[in-house]
């Protein structure tokens, strides 16, 4: 850490070089993990790649075996596999009749919308609740908020989804049960966007409640910690209004650990997205993973594993960047 910090001071460009190196390392590492997972599966890799159960012709199977060099030593096989991965060739899904990378690209936007909405909801509501709890520390408001956060923190996302469907779709009939659009309505433009938004509410809230709990606890804790620091006493002494201190001085500094947490959480939010998309039939990566699972399309599943890991690295790079904007003292690293 200290060594890399030193290098960054020499040349800011080094930082991006290091990040790219990290990305390459992750891709190669996950290729290794995937390669061995594929070998663990019953049957040889060609059968797994072809989606099992004779989805492909014998000629194609022979071609696959040749392409991946299954008759050659292990390191040659791995070399070929890695070569394919690095050329973004994640294979072909016979079940879906499309290249894996294209399938993933098609489904990525839906997941991005879901994750973006859920993270925004969790951030805004979580910081607000944490802020309120910290301002009323030790009083009933604080206790109620803390207990709610504790409960959400322990509730499985899929169960939240099921309960929200029962309450808001079945009993109250306010919001749709699932899907992303009302297909038969054929909306365009603004009506279409509103329709998607209506479908988005329940999945985004479901996925966001767990993180809302984390952000609430974290905001409350960091705010209370910052309240004990000297610069706050200075602000109080020079007569800054309490509300202004809470927002401008305390909350702003309390946001930093939340941004860090966000970066650490991307992987687990993606995991939650699989469950939420399954519950609400949201047509994203998670739903694709579930379909792959159901059809035993293991190569597609491993392709999604690879793509989401890359996504985690990319988001973390973005988080580093945001961190630098929030706190100019922080050097990216």
């Amino acid at each position, binding site marked *: 850490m200290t060594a890399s910090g030193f290098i960054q001071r020499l040349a800011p460009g080094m930082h991006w070089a290091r990040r790219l190196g990290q990305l390459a390392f992750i891709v190669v590492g996950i290729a290794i993990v995937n390669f061995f997972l594929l070998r663990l599966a019953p049957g040889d890799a060609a059968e797994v790649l072809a989606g099992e159960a004779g989805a492909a012709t014998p000629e194609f199977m022979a071609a696959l075996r040749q392409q991946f060099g299954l008759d050659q030593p292990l390191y040659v096989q791995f070399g070929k596999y890695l070569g394919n991965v690095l050329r973004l060739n994640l294979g072909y899904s016979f079940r879906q009749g499309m290249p894996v990378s294209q399938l993933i690209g098609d489904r990525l936007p839906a997941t991005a919308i879901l994750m973006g909405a859920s993270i925004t909801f969790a951030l805004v509501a979580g910081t607000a609740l944490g802020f309120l709890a910290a301002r009323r520390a030790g009083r009933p408001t604080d206790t109620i908020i803390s207990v709610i956060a504790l409960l959400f923190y*322990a509730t499985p996302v899929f*169960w939240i989804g099921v309960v929200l469907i029962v309450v808001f779709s079945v009993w109250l009939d306010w919001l749709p049960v699932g899907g992303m659009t009302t297909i038969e309505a054929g909306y365009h433009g603004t009506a279409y966007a509103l329709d998607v938004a209506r479908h988005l509410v329940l999945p985004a809230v479901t996925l966001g409640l767990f993180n809302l709990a984390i952000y609430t606890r974290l905001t409350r804790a960091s705010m209370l910690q910052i309240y004990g620091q000297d610069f706050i006493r200075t602000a109080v002494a020079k007569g800054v209004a309490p509300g202004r201190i809470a927002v401008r001085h305390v909350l702003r500094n309390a946001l930093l650990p939340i941004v860090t947490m966000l970066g650490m959480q991307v992987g687990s939010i993606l995991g939650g997205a699989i469950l939420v998309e399954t519950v609400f039939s949201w047509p994203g990566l998670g739903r694709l993973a579930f379909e792959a699972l159901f059809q035993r399309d293991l190569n597609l599943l491993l392709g999604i594993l690879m793509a989401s890991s890359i996504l985690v690295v990319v988001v973390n790079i973005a988080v580093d960047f945001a961190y630098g904007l929030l706190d100019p003292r922080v050097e990216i690293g």
Partner: protein
Amino acid sequence: MGMISSLRAAEGGATHRRSRSRVSTSALTGGVILVLILAGAAAAPFLYPGDPLDMVASPFIWPGTDPAYPLGTDMLGRDIAAGILHGARVSLLIGLVATLVSLVIGGTFGAVAGFYGGRTDWALMRATELVQTIPPFLFALAIVAILQPSVPAIVIAIGLTAWPSLARLVRAEVLRLRNGDFVQASISVGASHRRIILFEILPNALAPVIVSASILIAGAILTESSLAFLGLGDPNVASWGGMVGAGREVLRTDWYIATLPGLAIIAAVLGLNLLGDGLNDLLDVRR
């Protein structure tokens, strides 16, 4: 569960004094919930001796309508109460054993990396970062899908994906203790590295590891139930997540089938989290 340690770090200082009184309450509440669940799990074979997956009554008996089936029956006429109690055994077993697997892998990685430092440390930590980058639930899902769903496969999948935070925790503890006088004394006496790590350093790093372990068991139970919900549970045992998943089909009319088992998951996870929180302050862990 890297977020837990960060939460702890932030919650440590300022709130420490004030939270003392709350501490015993949370440890106590968590302990009581867990004892109740353990009692239910222990009583399951006596209260419901048969296979909880067997059909015992007519389907769709609502909770509270038939005293013989206090929580009702599902769409296949299976007793929900029996399923929940037997499910507790499975969930706790998987949570416990999977966490043991994580402890062995994470403990070994962390201890060796922290003790030897240098290139060993670098290589082990890069491997840890790699596993940490792969979304854990998706990773576990792929492993179970490939190994075929069974209790051992689920244990392996959760154990293999949950260890990185422990490796970091143990490494940090070892780094802190490594230069302590008692360790230096052992080195000068000529004790083997294995002996020093196992009998000198690790016992002193136990407190934070125990706290982490209780949170990890909670996470493992959540992961197990999520896998079962998606249909990746062991088909031969009752599982809370599996019951929720199966009940989804009749959600519109008989919503109790999908929702009741979820309450058991919440209770178990909440109990373990509260216990972890309470232990954290009782054992006075500084992170």
